[in-house]
C-alpha cells in the first residue's frame, strides 16, 4: 500500500528560526518526491526530487532526497511569518499518481 508520512504534524517557531520538515515514503515504482506549500485551498509547487543526495534550493528553502532510506527533508532558514502554511509532501508512483502525506502545519510567530 502506498504511504507517505510527514513529521512533525505541526510546528510553531519564531521568526528567524530554521526548521526541518520530514517526509518518509513507500510508493509503488517510485518516480519522484514533490513538496508543496498550501496556504489557502490550492497547494503551490516547491520542489520535485528524483535523484538521491542532490540538494534543490530556492531562496531560503532547500530539499534533499534519500532514496535508500526513502526519506526527504525540507529546510527553511531564517523563517518569516509568510512561511506559515501547511507543507505537503507527495510521492509519485510509476503510474504517475501522487500520494500525499497529511502535511506539516508550520506557524511562524513574529
Amino acid at each position, binding site marked *: 500500500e502506498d504511504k507517505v508520512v510527514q513529521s512533525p504534524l505541526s510546528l510553531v517557531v519564531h521568526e528567524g528560526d530554521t526548521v526541518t520538515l520530514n517526509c518518509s515514503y513507500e510508493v509503488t515504482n517510485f518516480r519522484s518526491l514533490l513538496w508543496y506549500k498550501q496556504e489557502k*485551498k490550492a497547494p503551490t509547487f516547491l520542489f520535485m526530487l528524483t535523484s538521491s543526495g542532490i540538494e534543490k534550493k530556492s531562496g531560503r528553502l532547500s530539499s534533499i532526497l534519500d532514496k535508500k532510506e526513502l526519506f526527504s527533508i525540507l529546510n527553511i532558514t531564517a523563517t518569516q511569518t509568510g512561511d506559515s502554511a501547511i507543507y*505537503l509532501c507527495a510521492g509519485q508512483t510509476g503510474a504517475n499518481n*501522487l500520494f*500525499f502525506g497529511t502535511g506539516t502545519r508550520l506557524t511562524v510567530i513574529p
Partner: protein
Amino acid sequence: GAGVSQSPSNKVTEKGKDVELRCDPISGHTALYWYRQRLGQGLEFLIYFQGNSAPDKSGLPSDRFSAERTGESVSTLTIQRTQQEDSAVYLCASSLTGLYGYTFGSGTRLTVV
C-alpha cells in the same frame, strides 16, 4: 488557459442532491488528477486521467462518485446523492505528461447540509 480553473469555487447542496464539479486544466496538459481534502486532513487521491482515459479510478470512494474527461480538456467530477461526509475541498491538478510538476486549481469547497 494560464492556470488550472475550477468551478464553482463554493457549492452548498442539500443531502441527497447530485453535484457536478468542473476542472479546466492548463492547455496541452495531458494528465489530470482529482483530489479531495476534508477539513484538517491530507489530500486524498480520487482519480487520474491520461488524455480522456482513466487508468486509475482506485481512489473513488464509492459508486456515487464518477468522473469524465473530454479529450485532453475539461473534466467533470459528479457526486450523486450527496452525503454530509462528502463535504470537502475538491482539488484538480494537471501536468504536462504526468512526469513533471503538477499545477493545482484553487479548488471547489463543497458543503452538504
